[in-house]
């Protein structure tokens, strides 16, 4: 079993949900498709959806909700 990394394309603040009252896009352990949204990154008050980019199983988030993220930092891992 190998793991793949999902990296942030942008620096900013990472959100797991589209708004504070919405459920998270994905829970730890969910399977993901490449075009599934897994989070949102806020850069200078603008919001950018982040797609998984790869199909994978049992996602594990490495960045918490509302935490800062650097460009290129690993947001989550999935099993292939």
């Amino acid at each position, binding site marked *: 079993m190998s793991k793949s990394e999902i990296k942030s394309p942008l*620096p*900013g603040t990472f959100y797991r949900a589209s708004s504070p009252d919405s459920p998270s896009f994905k829970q730890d352990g969910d399977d993901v498709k490449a075009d599934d949204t897994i989070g949102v990154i806020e850069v200078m*008050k*603008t919001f950018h959806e982040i797609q998984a980019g790869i199909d994978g199983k049992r996602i594990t988030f490495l960045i918490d909700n509302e935490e*800062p993220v650097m460009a290129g930092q690993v947001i989550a891992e999935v099993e292939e």
Partner: protein
Amino acid sequence: MTIKSVLIANRGEIAVRIIKAAKALGIRTVQVHSIADVEMLAVKLADEAIDIGSPAPKKSYLNIDVVIAAAKAAKVDAVHPGYGFLSENGDFADAVVAAGMTFIGPSGDAIRLLGDKVAAREVAARAGVPTVPGSGGRVADLAKAREVAERIGFPLMIKAAAGGGGRGIRIVNALGELDQQFPLASAEAAAAFGDGGLYIEKVISSARHIEVQIFGDGKNFVHFYERECSLQRRRQKVWEEAQAFLLPDDIRQQLCGSAVALAREVGYRGAGTVEYLYDEKTREFYFIEVNTRIQVEHPVTEMITGFDLVQEMFRVAGGAELSVTQADIWPHGHAIECRINAEDPFRNFAPAPGQISRLVVPNEEGVRFDTMLYEGYTIPPFYDSLLGKLIVWGEDRDQCLARLKRALDGLVIEGVATTIPLHRALAGDAAIQKGAFHTRFLELWLERAFTTAHQPSAEVA
């Protein structure tokens, strides 16, 4: 009691501006900063700095408990909130006072009253300030909404009473649409704001955004004339002028007079701005809202009146009476401010955080650059994109525009994309030179007139 020390509960260029005003008055300055802002200019300029934690604004700059704790630890007399963040939070103003310090701004009650759209409109009406024709308050049901629509006509806006900042607004063009949109808008407002209350206003199209700078000490009230802020993108101002040079003198007098009447109606203390829509065709103006803080664009007013508004905020908050009467305040010349943002105007204004590799600020007569930049500074991605404001003054608008073009050519910011090319294009545009614009102008102009031809050749790869 004269203020001797202040905590600046903000960041960026306005924190720098506040520190400069405080230093001119001999006030000790304490700057709060998130861990992402350790290297910001205001931290370097302040006498002391206090770390308030997480880069996320909600956990630092917007966290009342954390900011109050910092102010107590710093043993300051006063807190200056700047603009944005906690500046228009009445509970924050109350918390500062409850902690035994002075809030540099109006009372918590005044902030709450003027921050409530429906209540502020009622205050304006009481003070004799014209308001946009509409329901005047909450609309109970569809039948009442139809009555209002028949009285004021179409197009109209259904607005959420608890909304703001452009959110919770629906445009309706006919009676049939109203029947359909009203229940939807109510459900949407209930879901978004926890309050399904709606009110109705007529749409004023092709209007200008004109605002009046007010100041009060609780007993005396003055205005510092008006600003023209019609050039906006996504309801964010991009370019501001003082004065609104095409405004007829009799309208100017009514507009500025009505803003002072509103300040008097609430016994206003501190700096504030009364915003209006102005319809050139009908020569009518309408109240929009009051901002109970210093505004981003205050420097254009300072340039034409020669008066330091931020220093006056410190004096008045310290208990002094206004240092000027209306008769002392005269406009002279013309000023324009360009907001320089870290955004790429050729890529749909994509945000551009990053490191400043080179900075050259033109040092010419009539030119002021309010900024938080220095060479080597890395702009964090967590906050808004405003890097600085280029403010240019001239004896008249023509001289101001000529100086502005030169200043825009002389201003060099390398390392990140900025909106400087947008401002160069605007400064050279015939409609801008004539002053022929309104609040929808810029977005249409961007589609029609702004192209990669405006991109400096050196930057075209």
